[in-house]
């Protein structure tokens, strides 16, 4: 299954090994892991709580992976996103992509992550010394996703 939403942690090494399955056509693996930090906008963060829209999340991520497959020559792709309560240093998200050559893997991995940040229905709430607050969306994330529209990726 190329897209998973789960509360459990993941083992990136094992997931990537499963994605490759010893396929000798795979010449490149690019992976991104998003991790929970202990500070956001200058305020200490004790825990992070992630909620999502079941059903739409999977559909949106499937669509993003499918779009990446039309843009680059990919062999396989995997997205795992965690939900529930996380602490600083916990892994949040894994995007892993396999291809014949590194260019396709690098670009597709970044593309999937940029669109996950702006299109997949997840919301973060963090607890701080001043209380709990919803994490604000960042303009930089919209800009990161928008640049793929302007780029001719051949």
């Amino acid at each position, binding site marked *: 299954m190329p897209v998973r939403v789960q509360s459990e942690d993941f083992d990136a090494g094992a997931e990537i090994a499963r994605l490759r399955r010893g396929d000798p056509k795979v010449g490149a693996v690019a992976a991104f892991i*998003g991790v929970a930090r202990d500070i956001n906008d200058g305020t200490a963060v004790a825990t992070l709580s992630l909620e999502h829209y079941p059903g*739409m999340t999977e559909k949106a991520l499937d669509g993003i992976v499918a779009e990446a497959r039309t843009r680059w020559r990919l062999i396989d792709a995997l997205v795992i996103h965690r939900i529930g309560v996380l602490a600083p240093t916990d892994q949040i998200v894994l995007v892993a992509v396999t291809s014949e050559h590194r260019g396709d893997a690098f670009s597709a991995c970044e593309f999937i992550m940029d669109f996950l940040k702006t299109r997949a229905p997840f919301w973060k709430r963090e607890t701080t010394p001043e209380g709990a607050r919803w994490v604000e969306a960042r303009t930089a994330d919209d800009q990161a996703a928008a640049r793929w529209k302007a780029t001719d990726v051949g």
Partner: protein
Amino acid sequence: MKLLYFARLREDLGCAEETIALPPGVETVEGLRAHLMARGSIWQQALAAGGALGVAVNLDMARPDTPVKQDDEVAFFPPVTGG
């Protein structure tokens, strides 16, 4: 139709999910939003976010002119912050 509210919107409105009859004359996301905002000041504030308000119809991102029908599931939510 089924309406869903997520994250800050759910908290502000004190409502996660409700089922309503498609109001007469409501044919689009924008029409539905206007109908819900007429419920009172809390609804007006929560749904007035303009471009920052996310809306999905049947699990797909929607636009103000996206049609809505009686058997649709429509979700309202703040900008997404995953990853």
